[in-house]
């Protein structure tokens, strides 16, 4: 038997085994959960009908609009504040932790570790942890957004700085420029637009996450939604969702517009 036949036969066997394996895992997991495929499919239309009959903002729910909008504004403001403050801290850490303009040996490693730790703990987990010490307050929500955002932005800025400014930094260093001049005259002009773009993205993400965090911390738009939902005011809860979606879309359009202007 020649090599080609053996190779293709083995490949067919591997693919067949992999397919069987995935099916088996699925069956085991479904069996453990007593998941019934036919029942799930037949329940689907009922679910959709229920959603459309209950989750439609009614005339009565419009009275709640001022409360909803006020809380929504709070949430958006907290998200913007958390994004901006985390960006300031992140840029400082990214500069001292970068390869091209960073400080001496252990600093970049420490910065990368800190960024990685804060980034990999989900925002919701931060909110749960912080609830113990800061209780149900807006500050808890702010801190949770701030900590994750800061880890994420540090990582983004680190890559931006190293990618974009290595050449100019070398040139300025060769002219005898000092460290501060290097940062102000090369690194900042070269990274400003990318940094701004990341901050805009962070604000968008934070508004989405803030809704979820608000449910936990009992503040902002998340709390309003939770309250209506648990008191069976589904029409008002639906209005909250519509408002959130509109704000998120508006934010994304605005930040796209700003991006187009600065690039």
């Amino acid at each position, binding site marked *: 038997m020649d090599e080609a036949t053996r190779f293709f036969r083995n490949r067919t066997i591997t693919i067949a085994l992999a397919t069987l394996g995935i099916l088996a895992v699925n069956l085991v997991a479904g069996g453990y959960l007593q998941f019934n495929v036919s029942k799930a499919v037949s329940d689907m239309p009922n679910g959709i009908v229920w959603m459309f009959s209950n989750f439609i903002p009614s005339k009565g729910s419009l009275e709640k609009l001022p409360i909803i909008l006020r809380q929504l504004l709070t949430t958006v403001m907290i998200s913007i504040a958390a994004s901006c403050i985390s960006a300031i801290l992140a840029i400082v850490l990214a500069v001292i932790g970068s390869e091209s303009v960073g400080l001496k040996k252990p600093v970049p490693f420490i910065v990368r570790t800190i960024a990685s730790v804060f980034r990999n703990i989900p925002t919701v987990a931060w909110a749960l942890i912080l609830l113990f010490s800061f209780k149900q307050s807006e500050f808890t929500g702010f801190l949770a957004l701030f900590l994750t955002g800061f880890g994420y932005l540090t990582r983004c800025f680190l890559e931006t700085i190293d990618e974009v400014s290595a050449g*100019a930094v*070398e*040139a300025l260093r*060769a*002219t005898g420029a000092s460290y501060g001049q290097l940062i102000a005259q090369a690194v900042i002009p070269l990274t400003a637009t990318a940094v701004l773009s990341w901050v805009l993205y962070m604000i968008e993400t934070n508004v989405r996450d803030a809704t979820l965090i608000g449910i936990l911390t009992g503040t902002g738009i998340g709390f309003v939604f939770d309250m209506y939902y648990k008191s069976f005011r589904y029409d008002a809860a639906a209005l909250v969702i519509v408002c959130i979606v509109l704000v998120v879309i508006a934010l994304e359009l605005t930040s796209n517009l700003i991006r187009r202007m600065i690039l």
Partner: protein
Amino acid sequence: MTQNPTLNQAQDSAKGNLLEIRGLTKYYIKERAALNDVSFDLHYGELVSVIGPSGSGKSTLLRCINRMIEPTAGSIVFSGQEVIKLRRKELRMLRRRISMVFQHYNLVHRLTAVENVLHGRLGYKSTIAGMIGLYSESEKMKALDILAQLDIIDYSYVRIDRLSGGQMQRVGIARALVQDPLLILCDEPIASLDPKSARVIMGYLRAIADTYGIACLVNLHQVDFAIEYSDRIIALRDGEKVFDGNPNMLSTEMIEEVYGIAPDASQITPQIPLEPFDG
């Protein structure tokens, strides 16, 4: 900030050695020397090309002179001053008089041409003034004067990312000139340019050496350009100096020995004259 007195005196003397390199050696890894016991002198206003295949140590040699790379051993005396021993602040003072031109221009793309040229003055300024870009009137005039000399005055207020490669390299040379250098280190200045722009750039370097008496040490891949434009050629192979002499002494056998092949040397273009500027 005061200027280094020895450097000022040195500028006046038209004879003698600007740069004396002895036994310069650099190891990145223990097993192989990137630069092995290289010695040579450079006179005021001399244009010397360094040729050699990739990895022969050309870039390392250039960057050891202003200590962008720390040499492992050897001595570098620049206008009477031992470079190896300089401390951080003294090193910054030294770098003001040794400017650098790069293959990829290394400009700040989001700033205008004139702002990039003024970066050449940063070494002369206080940290704060440099950070906020506070330049004196005479510095601004000088930057614009040099841009005019290099025939890109029309692009002074244009952002770098709108310029062509040849124009960017002229901005790079302008940044080097505004430093008031005694020596310009050019690392493959024409390697990313088309032949026509390459001739313009080499013509400017030749004119800078002749008109202002600024020495140029130029890393080149193109042997024909080296022969045409240099006063002297140094050839490196595997980190060692294998040739040092007049371009007409560089035989075909020698080139073959350096590269393993014979590149053709031809074509001659007129040189580009420069007017002296007040500086």
